[in-house]
């Protein structure tokens, strides 16, 4: 893709706003539309766009596959960990009442934590699947498509 200068310039312009938007959707999921899943997917799209235009090798240098692998399980662990934390301090599984000061404060923090878990898992899973497909794909010439 070295000669597609328009694609390279446009995607370089687009990637930062995409990531900022993903973070906005992640952290404002309880106020505006969206949440962990949406944020994770949008975050992954930024990396996939980079991988498409600049090559998977360049993308995995930014985000090594080992990091993707750890992040995939880290998200689930954060989510389940929130649940087990509630169990440990004597509440029901995933009962956010156990976090912070209780009440709405606890709900907000609980939701923030589990959405973070969902976001991390979804983003890394999407990027991981993309890498799994793309790094097996032989290099195609433009005419082959």
């Amino acid at each position, binding site marked *: 893709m070295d000669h597609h200068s328009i694609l390279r310039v446009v995607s370089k312009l687009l990637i930062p706003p995409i990531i900022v938007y993903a973070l906005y*959707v992640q952290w404002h*999921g*309880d*106020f*505006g*539309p*969206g*949440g*962990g*899943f*949406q944020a994770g*997917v*949008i975050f*992954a*799209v930024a990396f*996939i766009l980079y991988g*498409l235009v600049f090559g998977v090798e360049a993308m*995995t240098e930014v985000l090594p*596959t080992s990091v993707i*692998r750890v992040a*995939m*399980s880290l*998200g*689930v662990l954060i*989510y*389940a960990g929130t*649940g087990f934390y509630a169990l440990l301090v004597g509440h029901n*599984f*995933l009962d*956010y009442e156990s976090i912070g000061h209780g*009440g*709405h404060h606890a*709900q*907000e923090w*609980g*939701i923030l934590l*589990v*959405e973070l*878990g*969902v976001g991390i*898992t*979804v983003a*890394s*899973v*999407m990027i*991981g*699947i*993309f*890498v*799994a*497909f*793309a*790094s*097996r*794909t*032989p290099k*195609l010439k433009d005419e*082959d*498509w």
Partner: protein
Amino acid sequence: MMTGISLAAIVNVLLFTFLVMTAIAIVRVRHLFAVAMLSGVFSLLSAGLFVALDAVDVAFTEAAVGAGISTVLMLGTMALTVTREKTTKRSPVLPVFVCVVTGAALVYSTLDMPAFGTAQAPIHEHVAPDYIARTPDDIGVPNIVTGILASYRGYDTLGETTVIFTAAVAVILLLGSFSRKKQKRTDKE
């Protein structure tokens, strides 16, 4: 200005028309690259429909997953396999018959469904009013959807996250690219 026809109705009719046109194009085109791109267009149009239905979060999930990621994955699969659809010599009568009968049954069943976008649909009349009434007191977040997904239905969402994780583990085990790529790189060096 025309009276009686709202802008939303015109947009909906336009979107559905384009959706049908895209579907017909997908059936007719043989080149799989074009088919993958058209299915991306199909997802983007559906995202437009979700916006018209005020489901913005569903809309950008559809735009990112349907139009973005799944198109890329389809292209990736295509690059691993073939780029043109195989033509078969079998007679198309039976498949067409099955499709027409199924389609007719589906259209017939939509006659009993509530009108498009109506507020009186059953889904809005069972648990939804209860959640809307209780969420400000119980959870206190302005986005009720998030309150339901992450707090009332926290178990379900944990299950969903685990499903996504399991899917990725399965794909990576099947394609096995993560470790192999590293070996290649060390070979080069």
